[in-house]
C-alpha cells in the first residue's frame, strides 16, 4: 500500500470502518512505516480524549428563557393561549388562593378579561395579576428598568409585589405595551391607596 493512501485510511481504521482485506494491507504498511504509526498513535490519542468529553449541560432556566422569548415573539396566538389556560386551570386556582392569602386577604373583585387571557383581582390600591411565567419575568425586568420597588411575595419565589407610584403607572404600561405584552395589565390603573401607591401583585399561573 502506498504511504499517501495509508495516511488517508487511518481514521477509518480507528473507527473499524475498513473491510478485512484493506485493514490487513494497512497493517502491513504500518509494520514498515514509523511515520504512519506515529500519526496513527496521535489520532488514537486525540479521538480518545475528544470522545471522552462529557456532554454539555444546558444552562439553568434555559427552558424558561426560551419560553419567555417565544411569548415575546408572539409565537402563541390567542387560540393556543386559551388552550394552555384551560389545561392549567387547577394551577391557576391554587396560585390565586396563595395570592389571596399573601395579599393581606383583602381581594374584593375577580375580573376575568377573556380577550387578555389573564386573571385580575383588584381593590383600591391593589391589583393582582396572574401571569404566565414568561410574562411574569418580563414584567419584573420592565419594572426593574423603571426603578420600581420589587419584592417577592412571602414564601413564594414565583410571585412578585411591585409597588407602582400612581405617576409611574403609565410608564410601566407603556413599556410593556411597546413589547406587545399589553395583555398583561389593563390600560387603566386601579385607584392608588392613600399614599398614591398601587400594589401590583403578580402571580405565576403555571410553570409548565
Amino acid at each position: 500500500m502506498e504511504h499517501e493512501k495509508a495516511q488517508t485510511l487511518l481514521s477509518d481504521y480507528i473507527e473499524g470502518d475498513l473491510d478485512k482485506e484493506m485493514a490487513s494491507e494497512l497493517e502491513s504498511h504500518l509494520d514498515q512505516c514509523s511515520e504512519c504509526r506515529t500519526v496513527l498513535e496521535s489520532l488514537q490519542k486525540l479521538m480518545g480524549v475528544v470522545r471522552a468529553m462529557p456532554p454539555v449541560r444546558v444552562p439553568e432556566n434555559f427552558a424558561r428563557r426560551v419560553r419567555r422569548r417565544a411569548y415575546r415573539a408572539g409565537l402563541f396566538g390567542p387560540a393556543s393561549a386559551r388552550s394552555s389556560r384551560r389545561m392549567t386551570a387547577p394551577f391557576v386556582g391554587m396560585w390565586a388562593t396563595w395570592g389571596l392569602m399573601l395579599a393581606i386577604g383583602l381581594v374584593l373583585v375577580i375580573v376575568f378579561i377573556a380577550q387578555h387571557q389573564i386573571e385580575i383581582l383588584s381593590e383600591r390600591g391593589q391589583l393582582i395579576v396572574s401571569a404566565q411565567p414568561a410574562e411574569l419575568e418580563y414584567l419584573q425586568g420592565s419594572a426593574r428598568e423603571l426603578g420600581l420597588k420589587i419584592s417577592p411575595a412571602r414564601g413564594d419565589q414565583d410571585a412578585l409585589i411591585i409597588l407602582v407610584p400612581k405617576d409611574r403607572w403609565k410608564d410601566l404600561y407603556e413599556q410593556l405595551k411597546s413589547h406587545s405584552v399589553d395583555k398583561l395589565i389593563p390600560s387603566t390603573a386601579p385607584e392608588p391607596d392613600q399614599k398614591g401607591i398601587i400594589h401590583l401583585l403578580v402571580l405565576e399561573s403555571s410553570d409548565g
Partner: protein
Amino acid sequence: MCLTAYGFESYSPRVAYEISRDETELLAALRRGEPKAFEQLVKIHQDRVYGLCLRMMSSRSEAEDLAQEVFITVFKSIDKFRSESRLSTWIYRITRNHCLNRIKFLKRRAAGKKIPLDTAKNMGWGAQTTVDPVASRVQRPDRLVEGRQMEEIIQEQIASLSEDHRELVVLRDLEHLSYEEIQEITGLARGTIKSRLHRARMDLAKRMAPYLSEE
C-alpha cells in the same frame, strides 16, 4: 404503534426509520401551535441543541441565544417538517445552519469593526494568531494535562478549526452522530465527510500534540 417513513437523499439509499407514537403526538401538538408542546420540544432537545451551538460557537452567550433562536425557528417551521428524516436530525440541521449563518455574520461584523484578533480567535471565527492562548495558560504544555483543563483546551482547539472541519469533528466525535445523520444534516456525500473529517482530525491532532504527549 409506530409509523414508518422513508427519507429521500440523492447521495444515499432510502433510509427507513420509525417515528414513535410520542413523537407523532408531539408533532401533531406542535402543528396545532400548543405552548405545552413547545415546552416539551425544548425539554427533549435542549441539551443537544445547546451543546452543538456551544461546540460550534465557543461562547456561552452566543450559544444560548442561538439555541433559543433554533427552537423558535423549529416551532415556526414545523409544517415544513415532512417526516423524511428524524425530527432530531431535522432540528440538528436547523441548528447547524443557524450556527454557520451566525459565524458568517460575526465574521462580517468583526471585519467591519476590526475586533482584536485574540477575541476573534477565542470565538473561533477569526484569523490565527501566533500566540497560543492555551499554551500561555498551561505551565508545562509538554505534560499531559487532565480533567477540566483538558476539556477547555480541546474546546479551544476545536474552535480554532475552520468551520467545515469543526462541524464534522463536533457532529461525529463530540455528538457521536452516525455518518448517515451527518449526511442528512450537512448535505455532504459520505466520501466527502470521511475525507474532510480525517483532515480535520489530522489538523486537530497537530494542534493538540503539545498537550497529548506523555511525560
